[in-house]
């Protein structure tokens, strides 16, 4: 996983999967990388082949953190299985999902 800061935004990429086994570590790493400048988090999901409910929990937790800073979490290019779980759990209502 790669975490890069760009202005007010933290870019997270290179996530292969986000499941029960690694979601806690993922959440801690991203939060650990945030400093007081960062309002938004962009998570590149183009390489993420698997997300389960624990992974969603981690994304929601980051969403709450950014909300407290008046920012957002944007999910970039989710793969079809990830897009499916986001829609199934209606997560597209709270996350900005960007496909390009």
């Amino acid at each position, binding site marked *: 996983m790669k975490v890069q800061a760009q202005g007010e935004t933290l870019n997270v990429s290179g996530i292969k999967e986000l499941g029960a086994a690694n979601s806690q570590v993922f959440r801690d790493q991203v939060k650990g990388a945030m400093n007081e400048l960062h309002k938004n988090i962009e998570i590149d999901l183009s390489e993420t082949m698997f997300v389960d409910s624990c992974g969603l*929990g981690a994304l929601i937790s980051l969403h709450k953190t950014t909300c407290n800073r008046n920012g957002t979490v944007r999910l970039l290019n989710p793969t079809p299985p990830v897009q499916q779980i986001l829609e199934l759990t*209606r997560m597209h209502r*709270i996350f900005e999902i960007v496909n390009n």
Partner: protein
Amino acid sequence: MAVQSIPVSRNISLRMVLACELVEVRPMTVMMRGFLQEQGVPEEEIQACELALAEAANNAIKYASAEAARKEIQVDVVCGLDQLELRVNDNTAGFEWPRQIELPVVDQETGRGLFLIQSLMDRVNYLRGSGQNCLVMKRKRSAFSHKIESEFQSESERRIAESEKVVRDMAEELSFCYESLSAIFRCSADLGKTNDLGDFARRLLTDLAQITSAEWFVFRMTSSAEQRLEVFASSDSSVLLPALSLAEGGAKSVEADAALAREDVWFDHLNPLKSGDPLAKIRPGSVGLVHPIFLGDSLIGTLTIAKTAGSGAFTAVQANVIHTFADFLAIQIVNSRYTDELVRSRLVSRELEIAKTIQRSLLPKTIPRLSGYGLAGFCESAHQVGGDFYDVIKINDDAILLIIADVMGKGIPAAMFAAILRSLLRAVPEWMNQPAALLGRVNRLLFEELSGVDMFITAQLVYVDSRARSLTAASAGHCPLLLALDEEGNVKALSPEGLPLGILPETTFSNQTEVLPKNCRILLYTDGLTEARNVSGEFFGQDRLVRWLRKSSQSKQPAEQLKDDLAAELIAFQSAASLSDDQTFLIMAE
């Protein structure tokens, strides 16, 4: 993890045994993926099984007691011709499978596992034993893949069919993009032709509703410092919706909720519109969302768009299209309003230009001469031009009437009144030696017009007779006339009684007569002089003006030079501070 293949008639199955640890779960589901791929199960079905199995196994591990955690978990996958079956044996105390599983509130971090299993599988049974339970999950195989399986079509044909499905999905998404773009272009072209922004918004949103299969929409925009949301366009103009106040909090309105929370709020049968919500009366049981629109940090408005319950919620693609339209619309409206403001401000500056021209035309081109005396006038307009003017009317070789006036008001109306006053004063030459009577006459003539527009005029008339060496002054609420009596610098301020013109219909003015001593100077001015401010906000004031007059009377400067001197004094005092009112004065010097 141990793996074992069990041959079952017509069904092929896979058994996996894993230690009770979360890290074991993913390798196990990946193993299942390989197994199902080998059986030619389509990707979509594999994904569903993978996720459901992961959720089930996670639960079996997370809820295991310390003792149970020492035991292994057994997972069976059975691939049949028309269904896939997954079985997870757990060693937990077990739990009551809920009769109805609902999604937790959006920001809750846990509690979606069972919902996912239920959504992805067609049938779920939780069989409870003592110290061991079994979760049985079944999913019917689609007719599509079944047909292929049963007809033993080749792998390449199966791949082609899958690619076709992907292409269909992409085509659907592309057609969304195409429809969105063409609607936006069509409406943008229309925007150039219309001034009716409400109509523009309604047409754009009607297109959006068509593209997203929505039935109704309400578009509100903010007014009065983002505190109120007023309906700007809606699909059904017969439903009257009240303006929403954001200051009161948004308890009863989902639109206010979304605006205050700064994020989308969705409503459906689980989170229906509250009965007090103004939107609830549009169509009962609607399903949709409210999107708050921001430009930078400021709230521009909200877009609510919805359909009837039967047709299901908006998909992620549709939600994206809705966001794009809403943001585009807001930008167009804000731009257009900005353009309107530009036009308006151009009109205002044109009006000021006209007013300035009128005002300049009121000043005498050349000042008449009075034997033995010099006369000079100064009039500097402020940016927001008012109605100051001065005038000098020659009555005969030995007598003149000095006039200074200040119309209280701005722009063309003030300039017009100044012009009328000037003409009225010049109309009756035989009254010019009686300033008080002349003021009474113009007050009667102007009262109705002035009070009708809440304006008034202060004015001062000074009749000077050089042969008699006397002056007679009358004032309509104007600032005092300053008379420098001698070269020692004694200054007298004359304030004959009188109300400004336009205050009372019948009012009397009084004349004050003074002898003109030798080498006297007379200064008539408007309050723009005494109320001029310097950078620290200090007024120029009458004292400073008297001091200047006292100092200047000790020199023998002619009127023209005195005028330049006072103008320079004013400019130096104000330095960088800009002119807030017209500054006008008239000097007479012997």
